[in-house]
């Protein structure tokens, strides 16, 4: 019989059909000593073994679909790639992503997040006729997109951004702005002026205060603050 280790997991619970207000529910779960499960694996086990009503999103379970962003011991991350060992404790608190309305338990309403993404027109725009084959792009030009196109829209960054908490309707937020730069930086995109104009107001870009929570929580290691800096620089270049 393998030795076991107890894990204490406290989970934010709220079902608007039955609960007057949210509460934290404490669970205990045993894992094999020496094993290092991901937080999602523990959640799946809780749901299967202890409480089938526990609600959370998940899909790929390998950190590429962006479904299971949540607040894990005070910091946003993806449950599926957050290893128990990385927490440095056997006591875990799981809460929904901050700054979004809660639908149920760990499931949040991401409407505003998606609206800000859509606002930056996140698709390639090119006003020249497409060639019969590919548009050419040098490896160096393509490299400009590295660190940008990998975004999985998990919202870990935007949900950790105080500027977004204050102005979720007017500040595009780190995820949206990272994608704004992804298209500005693409040598195949010709809508630079229009894109920059759309961001000129005092809120869309300029509410970023370089707090850098976004970069410190991004599960893909991307840096929205740097992208926002590039957008501002480009705006200055255009003005001078």
């Amino acid at each position: 019989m393998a030795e076991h280790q107890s894990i204490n997991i406290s989970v934010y619970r709220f079902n608007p059909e039955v609960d007057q207000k949210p509460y934290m529910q404490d669970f205990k779960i045993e894992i094999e000593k020496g094993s290092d499960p991901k937080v999602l694996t523990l959640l799946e086990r809780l749901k299967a073994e202890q409480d089938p009503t526990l609600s959370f999103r998940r899909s790929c379970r390998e950190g590429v679909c962006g479904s299971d962003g949540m607040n894990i011991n005070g910091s946003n991350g993806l449950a599926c790639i957050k290893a128990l060992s990385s927490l440095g404790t056997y006591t875990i608190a799981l809460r929904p992503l901050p700054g979004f309305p809660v639908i149920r338990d760990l499931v949040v309403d991401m409407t505003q997040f998606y609206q800000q993404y859509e606002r930056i027109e996140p698709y390639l725009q090119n006003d020249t006729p497409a060639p019969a084959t590919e548009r050419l792009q040098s490896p160096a030009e393509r490299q400009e997109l590295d660190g940008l196109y990998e975004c999985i829209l998990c919202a870990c960054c935007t949900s950790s951004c105080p500027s977004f908490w204050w102005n979720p309707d007017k500040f595009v937020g780190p995820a949206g702005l990272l994608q704004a730069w992804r298209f500005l930086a693409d040598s195949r995109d010709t809508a630079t002026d229009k894109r920059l104009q759309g961001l000129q107001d005092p809120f869309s870009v300029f509410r970023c205060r370089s707090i850098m929570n976004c970069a410190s929580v991004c599960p893909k290691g991307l840096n929205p603050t740097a992208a926002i800096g590039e957008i501002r620089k480009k705006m200055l270049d255009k003005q001078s």
Partner: protein
Amino acid sequence: MALPRQTFDAVIIGAGGAGMRAALQLANSGMNVALISKVFPTRSHTVSAQGGITVALGNSAEDDWRWHMYDTVKGADYIGDQDSIEYMCKTGPEVVYELEHMGLPFSRMDNGKIYQRAFGGQSKNFGGEQAARTAAAADRTGHALLHALYQQNLKAKTHVFSEWYALDFVMNDQGKIAGVVALKIETGEVVFFQSRVCILATGGAGRIFQSTTNAHINTGDGFGMVLRAGIPLQDMEMWQFHPTGIAGAGTLVTEGCRGEGGYLINKDGERFMERYAPHAKDLASRDVVARSIALEIRAGRGFSSQFMTPHVKLKLDHLGADLIKSRLPGIRELSIEFAGVDPIHDAIPVVPTCHYAMGGIPTNVHGQVLTTSHGKEQVVEGLYAVGECACVSVHGANRLGGNSLLDLVVFGRAAGLHVEAQYLANELPALAHASDENIDGAMSRYRRWLDSKDGDSIPQLRTEMQDIMQNDFGVFRTGEVMEEGLKRLAKLRERLAGAHLHDKSKIFNTEMVAALELDNLLATAYATAVCALTRTESRGAHSREDYPKRDDKNWIKHTLYFAADDSTDHRPVNMSPKFIEPFEPKERVY
């Protein structure tokens, strides 16, 4: 009680690569389209595709779509439909250039063209030297493709119903499909989507197995829906086991690793693929490599460790840090996360893992769903299937790496084009009238779960099913073991009818979704078991120890499975490409 109705020209179920490519075609033609997806579109499983999209662009070396076709027919072990394979390989370049124009950030060669890498089963000149045919965006091609398609659908203002779960088709008194009933997961609202055309793009069902590269959401929802509508599934015995899933976790490690020069070793450090496939070695077809690994492990030459199943290792460290960081950055991340190994320094523990359904809903080259009635084949009016849920059949008994992404966009687009042409000619099927009773029929399993009072739990039944499939229907199969497995599945099916949904809440009820998914998983597992027993030969991914030889005399044909009476039937394989002579079956060596 009458359900609320919404009316559309076309309803597309599933927002992965195939569904979104079809939706884009239709939205751009001005049709009134609903794209229904149980997850937000970019959470679909296409996002996990890594290595690339195989297409004869000829960027890395001379290439020809006919060579691609030859490799695909051979890879399919000669039960792929040659008209479909021809269409896919020939149309491929055009479709991939479209994706590039949409913004897909492909990796590039020094001359600015799309980068292409070597993948398994690829050859030049009909079986000659290794080709390099797989176009890639680093090792995140599926992610790049899915996001580009979602972005284009935003631009086209496609009407997306995100986090809606399709329950069943509404069949009217004449047996016509009138639309689909779907559940809004967030609120529990149920709506009848009345539509002239339905396109299924619901993906695979790897979750019938205990160990799979597939996302949690790959539960065969489209398979279940067509079976309940009396339509057969085709070639369900054909499941691909990917040679390199990370041992224990099941997460995928792309074949592109071997395309870039990586290779497999056993515990003696031997590059064992040299023994099994002297010519192609580690780049033999996936079925061949998966079987070789299984044999190595069976012979006691696998590695073992405390928290992992016995496995072999994939060696990449000799490729150097620069190449790994630029071409395989996602693999490095996954390997560190899920195997605790940095491939720059150490080999990755891997094991054959269920990856892909070659079988599915039978369709013609336009994606129109086919059924048989009294031995006659016919099109199901207004119903299409594309992508992994379809069996068009371009993959036959074994899919080549990089052909799945191509399949998604080529046939998503083909179905879109076919529907669009009817729309423009004012020839779309009329809306089929559906009575309240007809609509109610599509609600029955939702109600069944809501009314359940006690019985087995959902995870209990799901785990038992996955164990049966893993143990009795894996890489190697035998009749006796499968007979036992089928009996146990039959018992599970009985227990499922009385299983219990604990959570009855209307609000984001994930247990309800899991229950509805379990209906589809078990229907898929059962179809697999019946078809696997029926095919008494070894071909492609279907490897029977009691019938170890390929039997071309009796088995160059598709298997069909009907759920109503668990019966099987057969369809001929298409051997009539339009532009070239068909490729005749011959011995398959790599």
